[in-house]
Each structure stands twice: as structure tokens, then as C-alpha cells.
């Protein structure tokens, strides 16, 4: 149970700056997900919190205590590794007991705590087995049990589900979420899987090239991406970004895409003429067969039936967009459809900086 404060931490590997003065506060008992593509620095940040890497600059506080220069064993952390890092030469029981033995825990307490952790992860019956005799899913449970038994102030997880096959991952995700709700430890969870991040995190910190692009609750990150990178990374399919223009004339301004004016109000803070990117999710666009005021024509290129909906890839001017429609929407390749964006769902991004200017009104 502890708050983690990361204060302008910089980590450099040779010529590569993995973390560019990252600051982040993780509240007590919060489940924070670090999300980003590979090489964005999320694992490095986690390892800095663990004490497996030491930052060149900045401070790290756990529970108000400055641990920047402390080794991992003095940080009250426990970590689940991507490869699980279960000790091959020890039985499941000895793996889980390893940390408690290092703390010289009395034998009766040790046995009670190890048994309880093994029970919690439903691996009690495997206690005498060696890791080589376990499946990937079971090894992952051993790794989590070995971390939880320490009753750490902070639980760190580095892509703990990425080595499981798809079906098992789905099941393990829900289990892990329930488990962590029970133990209520401050948790930092690294993943590159945006679905995992959305479904598990109290908050998500999206990282990009050694910086944190956005920290917010999952729905907010999904609805209001701070820049086009976040919008493009989160969601499947990613957010559409279409070139548009805001044109003001005599107080009445309009947003146009490819010369077609949209039927959406222009936020007051946008005045004059400027290039923008319109960010909109596939499910926030309605496709209709007949033109209506404020709709934009598009040519259908690909139709993908996905069971719950159809995913259309359409061409708007010279750009591609994804549109989700009902499964009974009558459409064939090369048809022309008309796109009607849902009111309140368009986000406007600056064409140069790619950062959020404003939502539509």
C-alpha cells in the first residue's frame, strides 16, 4: 500500500534516451497500466521503479520514501517478469517460499503464507513439481504467487500475459483483475496490448518515445486522445484522422472535409481559417445510402463482416477511413456511401503538432 511518485526520471542507454524526464504519480492502491508500442520506454520505467535500472536523473519515491538509490530488496516491491523467471532448480513451493526465506520468516508463518498464496493462485496441488513439469499458464501463476506472497507495497508486472495463448490470456486477464481487486496493492502493469490496458487499468499512462503522452482513466483515453498517436494506438480499429479545414466567414464558421461542410457546430475557440485533423472512431460514423446535409461521400473499398458489425474501409477524397455499420447494411465494394459523423464525437487536432485542439461542442 503505497503511493509511487516518479519525478522527472531520465534514463539513457548509450546514445539512446529511453526515458525523457518522465513524471508520473501512481496513487495508493491504484492499478496503473503503462501502455505503448515496443521501445517506448514502458519496461524501462517499470525497471526503474523496481530498482533494476538506475535513472541518470530524477527521483523515485515509494510511500513517501526516496528509493532512487536503493537496491530492489529495500523497496518493498515484488515483480512478475514477462518470462515469469520461475527458478527452474526449485519446486513450485520453494519458488514461492524463496522471498520469505530471504527475509528469514519463521517456519510456521512461512508455510502458512506460501500455502495461502498457492491456494489463491490455484496451484496448491502442484507444490512439489518443478517448473519444467508445468504449463505456461501454471508457470505464470507461480510467478504471481511468488510476488503476492511477499505482500509487497508495490506490485510490478511486466507483460505477464503476453506469453500465454489467446484463449488462456482472456481467461487469465479476468482472473488477474479479480485477484488484484482483492489484494488491493498499488500495481504498475506494463503491456503493449491496448485491450488489456482498457480492461484492467484504473488509469492508463500511454507512452510514446520515452515520454508519457497521456494519463487518464481508460474511457477518457479512448474518447479524448490527447494526440493522434494515442488515438491511433488505442482502439481497434484505430481512430480515423481525416484532413479538414475550419473556415470562418462573418461569424458563421464551418468544418469541411474534402470541401464538404459537416453538420457539426464549430467550437467558439476556433476562429479564422486553419487546417485541422478530424479524429473520429469507426463506431461514431454512420454510413447511409443517400446524401444528407452535412454528410461526406465515400467509396467503399473493403467490407469485413466481424459478426457483431461490418467493418468498412472507405475512401474519403484521397484518405482511407474505417466505418462500423450494422451487419444488415446493404453494401457492396465500389458503392458510394455517405458518412454522417455522430454529434459530439469529433475531436479536432492541430494539423502540424497533431495535438488535441478541442472537441466539437
Amino acid at each position, binding site marked *: 500500500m503505497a503511493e509511487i511518485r516518479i519525478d522527472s526520471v531520465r534514463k539513457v542507454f548509450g546514445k539512446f534516451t529511453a526515458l525523457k524526464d518522465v513524471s508520473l504519480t501512481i496513487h495508493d492502491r491504484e492499478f496503473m497500466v503503462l501502455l505503448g508500442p515496443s521501445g517506448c520506454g514502458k519496461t524501462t520505467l517499470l525497471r526503474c521503479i523496481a*530498482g533494476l535500472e538506475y535513472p541518470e536523473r530524477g527521483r523515485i519515491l515509494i510511500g513517501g520514501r526516496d528509493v532512487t538509490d536503493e537496491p530492489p530488496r529495500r523497496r518493498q516491491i515484488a*515483480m512478475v517478469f514477462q*518470462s515469469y523467471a520461475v527458478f527452474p532448480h526449485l519446486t513450485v513451493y520453494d519458488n514461492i517460499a524463496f522471498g520469505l526465506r530471504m527475509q528469514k520468516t519463521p517456519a510456521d508463518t512461512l508455510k502458512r503464507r506460501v500455502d495461502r498464496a498457492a491456494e489463491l493462485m490455484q496451484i496448491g496441488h502442484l507444490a512439489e513439481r518443478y517448473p519444467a513439469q508445468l504449463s505456461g499458464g501454471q508457470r505464470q501463476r507461480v510467478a504471481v504467487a511468488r510476488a503476492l506472497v511477499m505482500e509487497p507495497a508495490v506490485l*510490478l508486472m511486466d507483460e505477464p500475459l503476453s506469453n500465454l495463448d489467446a484463449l488462456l490470456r482472456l481467461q487469465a486477464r479476468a482472473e488477474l483483475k479479480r485477484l488484484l481487486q482483492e489484494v488491493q496493492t498499488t500495481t504498475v502493469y506494463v503491456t503493449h496490448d491496448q485491450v488489456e490496458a482498457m480492461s484492467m487499468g484504473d488509469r492508463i499512462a500511454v507512452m510514446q518515445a520515452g515520454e508519457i503522452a497521456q494519463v487518464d482513466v481508460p474511457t477518457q483515453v479512448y474518447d479524448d486522445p490527447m494526440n493522434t498517436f494515442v488515438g491511433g494506438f488505442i482502439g481497434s480499429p484505430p481512430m480515423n484522422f481525416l484532413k479538414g479545414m475550419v473556415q470562418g466567414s462573418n461569424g458563421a464558421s464551418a468544418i469541411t472535409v474534402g470541401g464538404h461542410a459537416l453538420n457539426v457546430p464549430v467550437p467558439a475557440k476556433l476562429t479564422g481559417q486553419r487546417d485541422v485533423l478530424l479524429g473520429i472512431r469507426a463506431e461514431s460514423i454512420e454510413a447511409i445510402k443517400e446524401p444528407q446535409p452535412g454528410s461526406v461521400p465515400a467509396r467503399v473499398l473493403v467490407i469485413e463482416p466481424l459478426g457483431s458489425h461490418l467493418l468498412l474501409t472507405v475512401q474519403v477524397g484521397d484518405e482511407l477511413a474505417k466505418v462500423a455499420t450494422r451487419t444488415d447494411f446493404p453494401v457492396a465494394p465500389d458503392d458510394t456511401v455517405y458518412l454522417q459523423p455522430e454529434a459530439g464525437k469529433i475531436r479536432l487536432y492541430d494539423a502540424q503538432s497533431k495535438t488535441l485542439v478541442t472537441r466539437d461542442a
Partner: protein
Amino acid sequence: MTTAEMPLNIEPAQRSRRRTLSRIGLYAGIVVLTLFMIVPIYLIAVAAFSPRDAIYTYPKSVIPNQFSAETMQFFVGSRGVLDATRNSVIVGVLALLLSMLIGAPAGYALARFIFPGRDSFKMLILTTRAFPIVILSIPLAVNFIQWGLYDTLWGVALAHTALALPVTILVSSSIFMGVSRELEEAALTLGCNRLQAFMRVALPLALPGLAASAIFTFVLSWNEVFAATILTLRNRTLPALVMSQLNDSPLYFRFAGGFFLVFPALIFIFIIRKYLLGMWGQVVK
């Protein structure tokens, strides 16, 4: 149709014939190489367990017709042989311990840490083997006389350690590279300091491979003749003793000595065979 199909029908047959031929070639090569290694050892063994006069009979029969431990008894009973055997074992164990104490940590450092000059250091280790022991041993003997190490088992053990170290360092570095770094990091997060993480996780996992490398050192020391001959006078190791008496001894004595030297080495190599293959064939788990 038929003309188009014909080459398709012929090709697999040709291919399989070619494959069979190359198989035969491969196995023939294996047989020749194996015979090349095994025939001398076999002949030595046969000679060592034949009666003395049987050695001088020609033509030799491939299968020994008489078994006799007489020759071996004569060899083992000769003056100095038992002492020399004891010396050989002591020197071998000392060389093994020294090379492990120096080589394993050096290998660990090479496997785990990136430091300036790491690659050149690796090359340098190998170049120590480029100096023939023949050239080194005379100055070595002079120094050992000055240091009081001449004609001692420690002196020979040191020389053998120096000979074994390059292999020990490189092999143990490859063993430690096979032990995942994350395992040690997991130990660090579970309350270990660096030394404890090494002792409790990396070392136990590397132990089988390290043991194989240690036995390798022992065999090297057991078989080493030159340094042992130059650096000792009375405290001879077994190969040095056999070597020094070779010219004055009867043929059956040489065969018995040869067998006595070859046999333990063979057994050790058989024991560690699995690990050597594991080391060079794939990553040690």
C-alpha cells in the same frame, strides 16, 4: 500430359538416390573417423591385458586369445608408479579447483557485464594458447626455482591451471550466458543482494556445466606431459614418469602405462559427454 509428368516422376527417384548416396558417404566417414580413434585405444588395451610374450608375436589376432593381468600388475607394481598416480590426482584436483576459482567468476563477468575492452579481453584469453608451452616452460622453470615452486605439485598445478584457464573462462561464460538474466533479477526483487542472487540462482543452474568444465580441466592435467616433465624432478606426475622411463622400458611396460593413462580420461570424457554436447550444440537450460 505424359511428357509433362515424366520428369516429375523421375526427379524424386533421382533425389532419393542422391540422398541415399550422401547418407552412405556420411556413415562411411563416421566409421572411418571412429576407427581412427578407437583402434589404437583397443590395441593398447589388448596389449595391456595380454601376457608379456604375446606382445612380440606376429601376426596379431584382433581378438585377444589370452587374458592376463600380469602386465598391468607389473606396471602398477613398478617403483614410483603409485606415487606418481597420487601426484597426478593431487595436481589434477588442484588445477581443477584453481581454474574454477579463477575461471568461473571471469566467465560470469564476461557473460553478464559490458565493460570496456570486453571483446579484446576475450581474444587475449585465446592468444595465451598461442604461446607453446615448450617456449614457456624454460623461463617458467627458472622462475619456479627462484620462487621455490620448482619440483613441487603446486608448481605443476599452476602451470596446468594456466593451460586450462582459457577454456574454462570461455566455456563458463557460455554457460552463464545460458542462465537467463531475468532469473537473477527476480532473485534481486525477492530480497537477494548481487552475491546472494549469484549463489542461490545462477550458480546452482550453471553447476552441471561447470562440473563438466572442471572434469575437462582434470583430464587436461592428467594427460599433460611437457610442463610436468620440465617442472619436476622427483615429484613426477604419471605421464611425466612414464615419459621419462619410456626409452629404457620394455614394450609391455609402455602399453600398460598407456592404458593406465588413457582409461580414466576416457571414463571422465564419457561422463561429461552429454554436457559438452549441450554446451556446444545448444544453449544450456
